[in-house]
């Protein structure tokens, strides 16, 4: 029918993403020699003045990595990655000694973050949010450090944490995502460069949102950050990460690892707004976002909640998961994934119920437009000891146009008779009726699509910290529109 075709064309026009973060900062960088071998690993470790044990751990990971093959079970396709064609370390010159006070940070860098909407001058930034800014392989600034130290919260680049509190890092690093976990995580273990470290002492409710802003700038450079968050007994923290990269024709690899540890009665809320460069409308360029994120609810009554808004990257391969060890512990996963043009996403979560009366909730909203393909892939596992465990899963897909795909692959393994697992799934489209209705009320087509999609994602958007919910809402619109609006 004529009308159908026209609507689809129209929406596709709107669906052409304009990526406003695609600029490059012209800054002198210091890089490791191109390629990957043991010397690269040693170079990085030496750059960071790391203790011997960590270098050994990195080398073990690297040697193990050589024996591994890439995970093949996901529904994404890409040519083989030439690991020797990338740089594994790139740092803006003069950042050797780690982040200094904000007054000393290169003004070019400050400008970059300002352009990204993340001003690093404390008085200008959203009150109540502390930021760690990671530029290529190093952290360039961390704000509100002093205020956080007053309550005993440690929030700093992981390289700094190795000097400040090496015992904590040693105790927890690699305990949730072992260096043998999967090829991407193992690579990260070998060559991780920076990332954030957070420690919340017992009984402390972190007084502000913590946030890390990742920026890939250098050419042919991979970003391998590692984040470690420990919430000690009866503590609370909310953490948000954002990320962008310049527009480039090549594919760049981002293989991050995030480990969360929640002890008794502790709660970690981890939110991601991922907006790496997605490539152009023909699928040229873009970031390969191969990320391993996992949280361990080690303590009783602990809680880990993942919220992600995934709008960028050429390929997203990501399953933020919860290991629910402590009795009564709670895992949550709220996800919005938007794929447009030729983007591919295979994302979901794993909820591993080990303790008694553990509960988990999965709300996944997938939006596919253009020729994009996306898959929700999830595992809910009830172990024999998970007496009274419960899971509720809801996966909704929204299709825009007739050339995109949405797939739902839920794995459910229940080895306990008392465990209850529920799964609901829907697939829908933005109908012509909806578009006409909204346009008849004066709302232009682009805004109408954004409104419907935002409505579709509402349950997840509500989970974001307030300071970021509005931004995320806009981003949802922008990823599908032709303009910023």
């Amino acid at each position, binding site marked *: 029918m004529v*009308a159908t075709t026209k609507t689809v064309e129209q929406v596709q026009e709107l669906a052409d993403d304009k990526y406003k973060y695609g600029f490059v900062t012209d800054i002198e960088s210091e890089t490791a020699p191109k390629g990957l071998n043991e010397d690269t690993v040693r170079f990085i470790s030496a750059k960071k003045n790391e203790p011997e044990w960590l270098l050994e751990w990195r080398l073990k990971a690297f040697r193990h990595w050589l024996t591994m093959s890439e995970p093949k079970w996901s529904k994404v396709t890409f040519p083989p990655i030439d690991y020797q064609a990338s740089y594994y370390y790139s740092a803006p010159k003069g950042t050797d000694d780690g982040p200094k006070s904000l007054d000393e940070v290169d003004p070019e860098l400050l400008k970059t973050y300002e352009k990204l909407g993340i001003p690093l001058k404390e008085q200008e930034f959203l009150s109540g949010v502390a930021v760690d800014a990671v530029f290529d392989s190093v952290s360039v600034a961390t704000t509100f450090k002093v205020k956080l130290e007053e309550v005993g919260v440690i929030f700093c680049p992981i390289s700094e944490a190795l000097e400040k509190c090496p015992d904590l890092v040693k105790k927890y690093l690699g305990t949730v995502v072992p260096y043998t976990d999967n090829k991407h995580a193992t690579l990260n273990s070998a060559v991780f460069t920076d990332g954030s470290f957070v420690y919340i002492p017992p009984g402390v409710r972190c007084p502000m949102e913590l946030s890390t802003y990742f920026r890939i700038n250098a050419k042919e450079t991979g970003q391998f950050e590692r984040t470690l968050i420990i919430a000690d007994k009866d503590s609370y923290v909310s953490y948000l990460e954002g990320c962008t990269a310049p527009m480039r024709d090549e594919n760049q690899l981002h293989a991050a690892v995030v480990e969360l540890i929640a002890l008794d009665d502790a709660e970690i809320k981890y939110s991601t707004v991922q907006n790496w460069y997605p490539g152009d409308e023909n699928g040229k360029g873009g970031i390969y976002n191969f990320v391993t994120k996992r949280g361990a609810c080690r303590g009783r009554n602990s809680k880990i909640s993942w919220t992600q808004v995934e709008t960028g990257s050429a390929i997203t391969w990501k399953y933020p998961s919860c290991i629910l060890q402590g009795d009564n512990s709670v895992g949550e996963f709220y996800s919005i994934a938007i794929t447009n043009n030729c983007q591919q996403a295979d994302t979901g979560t794993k909820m591993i119920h080990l303790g008694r009366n553990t509960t988990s909730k999965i709300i996944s909203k997938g939006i596919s437009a253009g020729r994009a393909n996306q898959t929700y892939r999830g595992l809910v596992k009830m172990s024999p000891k998970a007496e009274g465990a419960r899971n509720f899963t809801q996966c909704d897909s929204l299709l825009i146009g007739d050339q995109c795909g949405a797939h739902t692959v839920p794995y459910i393994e229940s080895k306990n008779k008392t465990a209850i697992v529920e799964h609901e799934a829907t697939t829908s489209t933005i109908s012509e*009726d909806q578009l006409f209705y909204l346009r008849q009320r004066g709302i232009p087509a682009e805004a109408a699509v954004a409104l419907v999609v935002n409505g579709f994602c509402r349950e997840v958007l509500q989970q974001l910290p307030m300071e970021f919910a509005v931004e995320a809402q806009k981003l949802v619109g922008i990823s599908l529109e032709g303009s910023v609006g």
Partner: protein
Amino acid sequence: MKRKSWSVSLLKEASARTGSVEKKVNKKAIKMLEIKNLHVSVDGAEILKGIDLSIDPGEMHAIMGPNGSGKSTLSHVIAGRDGYEITGGRIIFQGEDLTGMEPEERAAKGIFLAFQYPVEIPGVANTTFLKEAVNAIHRFKGEDELDAMQFVKIMRAKTKELGISDDMLKRAVNVGFSGGEKKRNEILQMAVLNPTLAILDETDSGLDIDALKIVAEGVNKLRAPDRSMLIITHYQRLLDYIVPDKVHVLAHGRIQRTGGKELALELEENGYAEFDEAVA
């Protein structure tokens, strides 16, 4: 709202809800809506075969006709929905040719369509939707957008006027609404968007008599000297509560007859059989 001074005094009479057909019309006045020899096809099949219709400011017209006569097509074409091909004729709204204008542009110029089947928009609160609509229209006209406080004030006034509970504003657009609630929501939207030409497409369908009365009351409250209405209906019963100035019978893609309100009663008695024969 374009308020023309002459229309206020002249058309007070028309808005007196008497259903009076006798009315002096200023010949020089710009018509609210003028449809001239309109031919419309859908997928190659001609649905409207030469419609002529003229509505003056402040007038209420009713279009009646059997199923499949082209009533809904006419309302959709005026509102600018995709999928209809205008093969001949013109639609002129306040002196301006609508052909080729986007639906949102027509809405911004003051055309409102109350839907026969109001559409559900899950997850979008009624207020959010209406604020977006009002501000989109403001932007189109180059006017300042309303802030949250100004908007809430308008909404409060309109819900109070129409006797609609605030609860309806918080709910997602039409989701889980009863048939009556959906139609009342249309009337609320009309009140908030303040159109110059409102088209009510089978607003009475699926309503019980109580809901019908409430909706009709809402429509009557919104009658104004500078606002015209076009009521599209299959049954006469709505016209017991909303009294039109003119009634047109649409059958087989043409206006077959035009008369006063009494024509509706005649149709109620005799049905549309007469017009079947007229064509056969």
